[in-house]
């Protein structure tokens, strides 16, 4: 376990280090993420959705489906907790 764990860590660390230089530098305005989808959201977000906070515009309009199921995740977790912790009838019977 110790050794295999170490190997996995080294492997994971190596992969992350190996790929980092291919990623955009911090704060780079030319990065692909800033060039492709997001510009429209910034430029037209207020106009199209009427939300001044662009994060809100994305969250509840452009990608509202995500947000809906984010709520579903909460429902799942709540129901799950109820299901797991619900007292067992059999045990309480005398």
């Amino acid at each position, binding site marked *: 376990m110790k050794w295999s764990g170490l190997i996995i860590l080294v492997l994971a660390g190596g*992969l*992350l280090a*190996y*790929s980092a*230089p*291919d*990623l*955009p530098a911090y704060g780079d305005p030319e*990065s*692909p*993420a*800033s*060039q*492709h*989808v*997001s510009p*429209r*959201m910034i430029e037209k977000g207020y106009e199209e959705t009427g939300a001044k906070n662009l994060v809100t515009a994305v969250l509840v*309009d*452009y*990608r*509202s*489906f*995500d947000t809906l*199921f*984010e709520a*579903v*995740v909460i*429902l*799942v*977790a709540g*129901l*799950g*907790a*109820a*299901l*797991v912790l*619900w*007292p*067992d*009838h*059999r045990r309480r019977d005398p």
Partner: protein
Amino acid sequence: MTTSNSLAWIIAVPFFAAAVLPMVRRLGKAWVLPTALIGSGAALIFALYAAAIVVGSGEPVRHELGGWEPPWGIELRMDHLSAVMTVLIASLSFLVLVFGRGGMEKRLEGRSHFYYSMYMLFTVGLFGMVLTHDLFNLYVFLEVSSLAGYSLIAVGERASPFAAFRYLILGTLGALLFLLGLGYLYAITGTLNFIDVAERLAPLGDSRAALVALALMLTGFGIKAALFPLHAWLPDSYAYASNLTVAFMAAVGTKVGAYGIFRVLFTIYETGNLQFHMPVVQIMGILAAIAILAGSILAMAQSDLKRMLAYSSVSQIGYVLLGFSMLNANGIMGGVLHIVNHAFMKCCLFLVVGAMMAQVGHRDIRRLSGMGRKMPWVMAAFSLAAISMIGLPPTAGFFSKWYLILGAVDAGSWIFVAVILVSSLLNAAYFFRVLERVYLKREDPAEAALETAVATTSATPVSGSSALAVQPEEALEVREEEAPRPWLGPGTLPATMLAPIGITAISLLALGLGSAWLVENVLRFIVPGGL
């Protein structure tokens, strides 16, 4: 309803059912299961409707959520692969629910509405995963289905919450690795829509970030699919969870992981530049080959029937991924066909285990003697599924094996050919071990004595030391309710338990003989254009 928003309905209907179930419970216990069945059945109808359109027209059905066209908004898209997966999930979800009528739910006394609600949400997550065409949305649905899955597994035997927790840790690790991978893809392409990502990935060539993203996403889905060294969560979860859960999860749970791997490999990377990342695919192929052999060998060593089937799942998922790693038409079609076939086989097998535990209260392979006489019909279904697992014609399992062998020969990888052939012998070895018990060994008095001894020890609450000392309550409940006429074959089991078993078993033959239709009309369109 228009064609395109039928996709949304597929997801929405079971979700509504899940949401109203806790309320419906107020009306009375009898309302719970019918509501779930209606939700599941309606989803099945929508799924069949959309799939029929996809197969009929040969074109994917699309739905832009919120009216935002991709890549700005989220797109639901049912192409041929999604159609296969959706119909598979919908039909098995419905069948297993029907099975739930037969005594399973009695163990959930007082919380069955939560259970079924969770079951529906699990289905919702799976539907979402196979329908969405957006990476982050896929992650969200992955988490919906995973969280629901953890909770479902936690409802079972004594150790099931522990198994569920271990699954949660590993499963979340998988989901997070996928999230990190998609973060990498987002960082280098700036978009999340599958097709858009694929287009923008193509000019990047042998980008290191793309390679790492591929590795991360494959590892993530590999955990969900229980690819060999990442399968640690699976045996315990399947062994301890309730049969209803396992029948459904084993059928489609891991398959959706394989679906994710397909999407990553062939929708996102293949059209772009998979050729630059061959090592990752090769490693996956080797792991899959090891999975096939290791899973079979481990399955042979088990005395717990459920655990044996769990390890066999590990082995079977290897077939699917091995097919994908061949990167040719036959291999990929074989892999996808095996997703479908194996889903039905495993569903059938686990349903049989469920029926068996309801009847005799245990699942120890060593004590199955004479079951062929006690439950002839159920055991006939078991035999059929076993034959299919071994891959003998004309059952479904043979045909996926056929395409996989063609694929392996096509790819010129003789080691994979050997692995597939040897593993079907191994499958035969462990399934005939069970079948011999079931049909050929007579019950001897010593065994019967052992049986009573174990039954008495497991009745005391503290013992539980053996993993096989299982829930005698389950058995007792059914027997109490039905008049006590044991061993009369189908008579002692309700029709709602027998029907799903029968349907899955017969569909194994139908899938076998209909596989050519499936291949020609559906699977051909799944193979990416370059292959």
